[in-house]
């Protein structure tokens, strides 16, 4: 096998070493749940009496999900193998540790592996009389939604879901209230991405797909899933136009609505490019009379060292949501 040019040791140990490095670097925010790759807030005292928020998924999306553990956001997060759902026993351990008697809310990305593994964990937790509710985030509009398929994937918009349910939980919302909030917000979160290069899973040792030196792909997922179109590389302006059009076709942009915007780097895309993209985005939104009321630019839901950007729009039809977005948090990465 070709040497993988990465700063790692044995490919099969990347997740356990990464989790260890993260918790030991930031003991003020998180700690490991013994015998798992799950992590939980280290300020357990301040979790008392609150609904626990648990998320997770495959590794390779850092700082998701553990980077969002902390006051005001996630209570616990579970790290699966790279691009692979965590297993039910690990998720169950996180649910158990996160429960403070008021129940646990799961934020799951819509992949069959994640859905089934979290489902099995939920079954296990319910046997322990822990109340568990969940939301399955499916914000990626690149994929046709249909009753007859797996449906849309969960991508960067998941981080915004973490933020709002985490803020609500910290303010004492009940499990039912959090479930309602998540369900109401979900259809208003939409994401679309473009890739310039693919990611290499350490254990696989070669990229998930290959693009020519001048090629890009629209609509890719966060695990090197193929997108909807390949093209020659375009200017940032034209990329923004394509992605905004796609979002607009999915849900017409409304000049009188308030939007939160997440410009998300996929791992290897420098902030320089993300800010240029944001410049063009804000210009084109302004031309449609839309001025975002909340914006984040950076690497939040990555795909190892994939180069590319995703654009998430969150239509804040309920004005409470903006308060949840700006609610202060104490995490590694928000």
């Amino acid at each position, binding site marked *: 096998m070709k040497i993988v040019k990465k700063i790692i040791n044995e490919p099969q140990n990347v997740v356990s070493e990464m989790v260890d490095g993260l918790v030991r670097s930031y003991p003020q925010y998180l700690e490991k749940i013994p015998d798992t790759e799950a992590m939980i807030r280290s300020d357990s005292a301040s979790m008392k009496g609150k609904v626990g928020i648990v998320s997770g998924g*495959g590794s390779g999306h850092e700082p998701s999900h553990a980077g969002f553990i902390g006051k005001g956001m996630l209570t616990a997060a579970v790290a*699966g*193998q790279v*691009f*692979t*759902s*965590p*297993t*039910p*026993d*690990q998720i169950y351990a996180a649910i158990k540790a996160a429960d403070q008697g008021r129940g646990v809310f799961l934020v799951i990305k819509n*992949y*069959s*592996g994640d859905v*089934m*593994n979290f*489902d*099995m964990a939920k079954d296990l937790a319910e046997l322990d009389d822990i109340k568990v509710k969940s939301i399955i985030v499916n914000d990626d509009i690149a*994929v*046709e939604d249909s009753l*007859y*398929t*797996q449906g849309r*994937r969960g991508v960067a918009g998941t981080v915004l879901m973490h933020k709002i349910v985490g803020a609500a939980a910290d303010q004492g919302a009940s499990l039912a209230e959090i479930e309602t909030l998540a369900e109401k917000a979900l259809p208003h979160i939409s994401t679309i991405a473009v890739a310039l290069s693919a990611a290499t*899973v350490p*254990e*696989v040792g070669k990229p*998930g*797909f290959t693009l020519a030196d001048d090629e890009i792909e629209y609509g890719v*997922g966060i*695990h*090197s*899933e*193929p997108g909807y179109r390949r093209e020659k590389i375009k200017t940032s302006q034209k990329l923004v136009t394509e992605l905004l059009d796609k979002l607009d076709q999915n849900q017409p942009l409304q000049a009188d609505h308030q939007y939160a915007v997440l410009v998300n780097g996929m791992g290897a895309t420098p902030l320089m490019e993300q800010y240029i993209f944001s410049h063009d985005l804000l210009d084109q939104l302004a031309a449609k009379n839309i001025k975002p009321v909340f914006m984040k630019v950076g690497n939040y839901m990555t795909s190892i060292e994939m180069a590319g950007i995703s654009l998430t729009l969150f239509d804040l039809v309920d004005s409470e949501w903006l308060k949840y977005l700006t609610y202060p948090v104490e995490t590694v990465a928000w």
Partner: protein
Amino acid sequence: MLTVENTQKWLNNFYQKIEEHKDYLSELDTPIGDGDHGNNMMRGMVGVKESMARLQNPDLQALFKAIAMGLISKVGGASGPLYGTAFLEMAKKCTETQAAADLILVGLAGIKKRGGATEGDKTMVDVWSPVAHSSQLTTEVIAAAVAATKDMQAKKGRASYLGERSIGHLDPGAVSSGYLFTALIETEGIL
């Protein structure tokens, strides 16, 4: 008729097939998935082996449970809960009947319930179902079932994201299921 001994042999044989075809399974998963099915199954089968090794004089139910937990607690990918649920259902049923056909049938039911897929969705169900319903299990039955997934359009799992572009590729979970049943045929005394 399944016994503790031949079930262990069956799974050991499956382990070897997964080990041998690991890269091929991941390759199959690349154009229509995320390229990890071989790695997932390998991790799962290592889990199964470890989990079986920890058993001391197990009965068939304990053995099936150990197999299920090995898969469930090691794979993570979609295939983990699916294979795992299949073996869990076999564990439940095996006190009642040890006939391979009966156990495969409850395994299939578990997979369908867990994943919501049905025949024709281009998943492992498209191998489990013909196998479960065949009057006599042969390598031809398996090969035909696996091959048939090529022309299907995926309706479940990652491959479904591709819509029509999923047509023309074998389903990786169908291929690994094919190995499972080939290993079964090859294990003396089961069928």
